[in-house]
C-alpha cells in the first residue's frame, strides 16, 4: 500500500527541485521553462494523490486541465523564446534584464 505521506513527500521534493532549478539556473531560458513544467507536475502529483486517497474522481479530472494549460503555456513560451532568440541572438537569462530599474 502506497501511503499518502510518501506521495506528498515526492511532490514536495519535485516542487523544491523545480524552484531550486529556477534560482540556480542563470543561463538557459529553456531550463526555466522546464522547471515551470516540473512545478506544475508536482502540483498534479498532489491532485492525483488526494484523489486516490479520498476516492474522488474530480482530482484526476483536474489534472487533465492542468496538463492542457501547461502544454499550451510551454507552446507559447517556446514560441516567444524562438522570436527572442532571433531578435537577441541569445537565450541567456542574464542578458534579458530590460526590466531592471
Amino acid at each position, binding site marked *: 500500500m502506497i501511503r499518502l505521506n510518501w506521495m506528498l513527500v515526492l511532490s514536495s521534493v519535485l516542487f523544491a527541485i523545480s524552484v531550486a532549478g529556477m534560482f540556480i539556473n542563470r543561463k538557459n531560458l529553456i531550463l*526555466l521553462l522546464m522547471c515551470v513544467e516540473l512545478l506544475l507536475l508536482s502540483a498534479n502529483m498532489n491532485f492525483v494523490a488526494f484523489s486516490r486517497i479520498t476516492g474522488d474522481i474530480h482530482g484526476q479530472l483536474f489534472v487533465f486541465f492542468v496538463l492542457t494549460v501547461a502544454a499550451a503555456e510551454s507552446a507559447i513560451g517556446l514560441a516567444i523564446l524562438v522570436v527572442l532568440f532571433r531578435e537577441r541572438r541569445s537565450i541567456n537569462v542574464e542578458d534579458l534584464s530590460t526590466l531592471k*530599474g
Partner: protein
Amino acid sequence: MKPLDPDILLAIPLLPLAAAAIAGLFCRVIPRWVASGVTILGVAASCALSLYVANAVLFGGADVFNGTVYQWLMTDGVGMQVGFLVDQLTAVMMVVVTFVSLCVHVYTIGYMADDDGYNRFFSYISLFTFSMLMLVMSNNFMQLFFGWEAVGVVSYLLIGFWFKRPTAIFANLKAFLVNRVGDFGFVLGIAGIIYYTAQFGGASLNYADAFKAAPQIAAQTFNLPGTDGVNAMTFICICLFIGAMGKSAQVPLHVWLPDSMEGPTPISALIHAATMVTAGIFMVARMSPLFEHSEFALNFVLFIGATTALFMGFLGIINNDIKRVVAYSTLSQLGYMTVALGASVYNVAIFHLMTHAFFKALLFLAAGSVIIAMHHEQDMRKMGGLFKYMKVTAITCWIGSLALIGTPFFSGYYSKDLIIDAVKAQHHLHPDNGIATYAYWCVMIGVFVTAFYSVRLLFMTFHGKPRWDANPAASHEHAHDTHAETHPLPHDGTPHEPGWEVKGPLVALAIPSVLIGAMTARWLLFGGGFGNSIFFNDEHHELLNELGEEFGNWVSFGAHAVQNPVFWLVAAGVFSAWALYIKWTHLPDLIATKLKPIVFVLENKYFFDWINEKLIAPLARLFGTAFWKIGDQGIIDGIAVDGSAKTIGFFAGVVRRVQSGFLYSYAFWMVIGLAVMLGWFLTRSLN
C-alpha cells in the same frame, strides 16, 4: 430737480470707445476719412452729452448721480463695480476732457496728414478719451485705478507712436517705469482704504463709504518700526499722493514728462498737458474728504508742489526745444495746482486745472503749428520772425502765453493769483509753518520765471531776426520727424501757416483761454459752484471766506492787479525777456558764461536722470538680481520645487534596486510571497 439718466452717462465714455474700436480694429482696411470721421463724431457726441450733463448738474439743479451700472465681481465682501459719480467736480472735468479732446481730434487731421499711422493715431486718442472719462466719472477706487492705468497705457502707446525712433522707445519705457513707481504707492493707498473701511462699516472700494469712515480712520494709528505710531490717514493720503506724483509728474517722479515730448504734438497737448497729467490733481481733489484729515499729508503735498513749481520753471529758461519749454512750463503749472491742493483750496486747484487745460493745450497746438511750418524743426534757435508768416498761430500763442503768465483779465490770472493768495493766507495764518513760507516764496519767484520763459519762447519764435533761412538745408537734415522728407508743403524757404483744421482748434481754445476765468471764477469758487463735491475742514473754511472777500468780482479783482506784487513780477519777467532776446541779444550768452555752474546744473536737469540711471536703476537691478538668485533660484526653485523632486528621486533610487530585471529574482519573490501568505492563511485557519 430731475435725476440724470444713467444711459446718457454710460454713452459718454462708451461712444469714444466704440469709435476707437472701429478705427483701431479696422485700421488697415478703412480709408482715412472714416477713421477720423468716426472718432471725431464719437468725441463730438460725447462732448455734447457732457455739456448737457454739466448744464444739468451745475445750473439745472439735477441731483448728484452716484450709482453702480455694472457689478463686475464680488470677493470677500468687497464689490468691484463700474459706477458713476457725477457731481459738479466731475461735470467740470468731463467738459474739459471732451472739449480739449475734440479740439485735438480736429487738429490731428492737419498734423498727422502725411503720417502712415493716421488711423492708428485716431484710435489711440479716442481710446484715451474713453479712459480719461472712466477715470473722472468713477465712483469707486477700482474703476479709478482702471482709468488710471488705461490712460497710462495709452500714454505709453502714444509717446512711442513713432516706434522706429530709439529715443521714442526709450521715452515711453521711461514714462511707463516711472509711473509704476507712483502706482506702487497708489495701490498701497487703496489697500489701506480697504483695510480700514473693513474695520468701520464693511470693506468697500466706494468713495462714499471711504469718506464716511474718514473721521474714524483718521483716529487710527499703526506701528511702524522706528516711529512712535503713524496716523493711518496720513499713511493712506501720502500713498495716494505718491500715485498722483507719478501721474502728475511731481518732483522727483517728473522725469518722464519732458521726455514724453517724443510723441506727436497733438498728444502732448491732450495727454501731457491738458488732461492725463492732471489726473493726479483731480484725484487728490476728489479725495479731499480724506486729505482734509491729515495736516501732515497736506504739508507734504505743499512742499512737493512748491518745489516742482519753482525748480521745473528754471529748466524752462535754458531749453531751446520749443516743445520742451512748454513741457517744463506744464510741470511748473502742475506744481502750482499741487500747491493749491496742499493749501487745501482744492477748488482753486481744479479751477487752475481747467484754465490751464485750455491755454496749455492751445500753447502746445500752436507749437505744433510752428513745427509743421518749420518742417518739423523744433529748435527755437532756428526760428524767429515768424509773426508775419503765421499770424493766427502767433496771435493765439500770444493769448495762451498771456493767460499762462497771469496777465490781468485772462483766465490764468484768476486761477494762478488765487493760488498765490491762498498760499499767502496760509503763510499768514500759520506763520510757524516753514513749509507754507517756503511754498509762498516758491510760487512768487515762479511767477517771474513763468513770465520770463513764456515770453522768451514767443520772442525767439515769432519775433526778432529770422534765423531759419540762414541755413535752409540744415533744418531739413536735422529734422526730428521721420516723415519730414515726405511733407507735402512746398519747401521754398518761407514757412506757411497750416490749414483750417489746425487754425480752427487754436481759435476754439483761445476763446476759453481768455474768457473762462473771468466768467466762472466767482461763481465756481465762492458761489458754491462745486456744491458738496469738495470737502473742507472748518478751519480751512476761514481761509476760503477770506479769499472770497478779497476777490470781490472779476472786474475789481482784475483791476486790483496793479496793487499786487505778483503783477509787477510778471511785468519784470516780460521786460527781462524782451531785454535779453529782442534788445540786447548778445546778453544771454554772456550771462550763461558768467554763471557757468548754475547753467551746468540746469542743463543736466538737477542730475535727476543721472541719479536715476547711475544710482537707482543699478541699485534696483542689484536687488532684483539678489531676489532672483537667492529668493527665486535658491529658495523657491532650489529648496521647494527642485528639492522635493530630488528627495523623491533619492528614495526612488534606493527602492528601485529591488527591480533587478532577472526572471529568477521575480520568481523567487513570488514564491516567498506565496509562502508567506499561505503560511499566514494556514496558521490562522489552524487556530
